[in-house]
């Protein structure tokens, strides 16, 4: 899957990535972070906009920069880089809002065939994990590199 994506910058452990979204609302710096959780090898993936002045990160802001697909492709690229370095990890993702979750779900659904070549993907629904299926309203996702 070689979709258009932004150049990724990272620190050497590949836990934190940065890229710049370009669109009608200007250049917006985005930060991606893979955070440790209470379980070894279970990482939370989150990303948001970086305020250039304060350096603060906001994962609730809607950038409306007309490039959501390219942004998601860039985040997926960071998952490839991270899971190439850390082979046995599980990546947990949930959106800040229902609409953000819907965006993630649509992104996974659209490229599910390609994603499943390289990852096991699961969705959380009704308090249980199941293999990701089209058309279901998952509240969170887990991916593991094959």
């Amino acid at each position, binding site marked *: 899957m070689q979709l258009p994506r932004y*150049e990724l910058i990272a620190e050497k452990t590949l836990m934190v990535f940065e890229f710049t979204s370009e669109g009608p609302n200007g250049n917006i710096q985005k930060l991606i972070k893979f955070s*440790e959780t209470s379980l070894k090898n*279970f990482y939370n993936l989150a990303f948001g906009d970086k305020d250039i002045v304060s350096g603060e990160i906001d994962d609730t802001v809607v950038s409306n920069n007309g490039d959501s697909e390219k942004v998601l492709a860039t985040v997926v690229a960071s998952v490839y880089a991270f899971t190439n370095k850390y082979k046995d990890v599980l990546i947990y993702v949930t959106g800040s809002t229902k609409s953000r979750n819907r965006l993630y779900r649509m992104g996974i659904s659209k490229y599910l065939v390609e994603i499943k070549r390289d990852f*096991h993907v699961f969705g959380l629904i009704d308090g249980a994990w199941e293999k990701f299926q089209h058309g279901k309203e998952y509240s969170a996702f887990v991916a593991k590199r094959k």
Partner: protein
Amino acid sequence: MKDIKILNQKNLPVVRIDNSLEKYVKLPIFQDKVDNANEVLRTVGLPKVIK
């Protein structure tokens, strides 16, 4: 050329390293998401097939 082909097959992006990002590694950003992940781990656990 062979290396580039391998990279493309693996969907691996080219990543530029910038050490100025190191400050974010220990910074507790997205902590609400991490808390959510821990809560799901506690209440739901892992997907069965990869337990």
